[in-house]
């Protein structure tokens, strides 16, 4: 569980209210009912707390999938 990618997966499951074994790698914003605009802000807060980073406004808007989230977290110096 200490791998950054697993921690990001866990953050998605927590913030979106998904089961502990739910597949998240292919998730996209608004493509599933759980990832709506409210959950998106919860997701941002959860990721920021998990990795102790602060996303920029452009990151918050651009974070439209799990894959993009990996890129954004990586941009903040996390080896993911």
């Amino acid at each position, binding site marked *: 569980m200490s791998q950054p990618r697993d921690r990001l997966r866990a953050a998605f499951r927590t913030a979106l209210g998904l089961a502990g074994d739910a597949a998240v790698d292919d998730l996209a914003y*608004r493509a599933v009912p759980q990832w709506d605009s*409210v959950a998106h802000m919860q997701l941002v807060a959860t990721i920021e707390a998990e990795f102790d980073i602060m996303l920029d*406004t*452009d990151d918050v808007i651009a974070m439209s999938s799990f894959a993009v989230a990996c890129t954004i977290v990586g941009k903040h110096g996390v080896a993911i």
Partner: protein
Amino acid sequence: MSDDLDLAARIDAVIEAPLYAQPQADKAARLIPVLDALTRHHRAACPAYKRLTDVLGPGDRRADALAAVPWLPVGLWKSHRLVSVPDDQVTTTLTSSGTTGQVPSRIYLDRDTARRQARGLARIMTHVLGPKRIPMLVIDHAAVLSDRTSFSARGAGVLGMMTFGAQPKFALDAELRLDRAVVDEFLARHGGAPFLLFGFTYMVWAYFYEQVKAAGLDLRHGTLIHSGGWKKLVERQVDNATFKAGLAAATGLAHVHNFYGMVEQVGSVFLEGDDGLLYPPAFADVIIRDPLTLAPVPTGTPGVIQCLSALPTSYPGHSILTEDLGVIERVDGGPGDRHGNALRILGRLPRAELRGCSDTHAAEVMR
């Protein structure tokens, strides 16, 4: 489909254009073909809109000026379902009851339109807040976000602004009393550096200002963004100058920006500049029309506000005649390199005046 892709790319180009620095003539030249393409997109995609523009507007004739883009009265979103995408592509429905009746407006968003609204709002807000998110104190209670499937305008506004604020806290409790514990902790932690305050104009004055006045809070490092209209405050004889002076005297709050926007055009709000006037961004504009003839009026003449926005493709709301009165005080040459139309809001139109023949026509062709 290639037409739709082309339109999407052209909309994105105006969203990214210089936000306020374009002289009005340049801005209009950029915006007119995009708005004209939106008219044709919605005529092809929304049968009700096509019938309306056949009767009210220019049909297939191309717009060669902003004032030639056909408009719909804002009230139509209360009475009719106006949508330009198939049902299964609608991801969010925004609702607003407005101030004149119980029937809500219904605005249908797909992913593209919602994304553009978020990007447009970000362009506007980062212009005054910077690209970094700063700690945010919401002047409201947490329950405004409780119904996730169908937001009130207030909930949608708070949520939209949360993009720009980090670690949001709510300053009011469930009874709309100042939550001193939350506010004191927020200010102890973040009050010494830039932070964001956001709330609806009336809430800020009636529930925040009135209580912080006595509490002696220091909000010197805050930037307040507020919206929602002045109707209730005008009844208390509070105008924008009184509002700003009151907050500055009581809390030291110096950076205050009102904005004018509506649920029918989320994302293309008109933000207040340093001169107290409201500026449409690069991807939106404003026209003032005579309340009786509905012809455009010259700069400096009050009339009904028409709002243009390049953002919506999922509903035909790129050109809307509001029920608000305003005046364009100046074109180009505003402080802080703000050009284009500088708007002052004068209040609501008395209800009866818009019920002219155009509304009757609208009702007939929509059947």
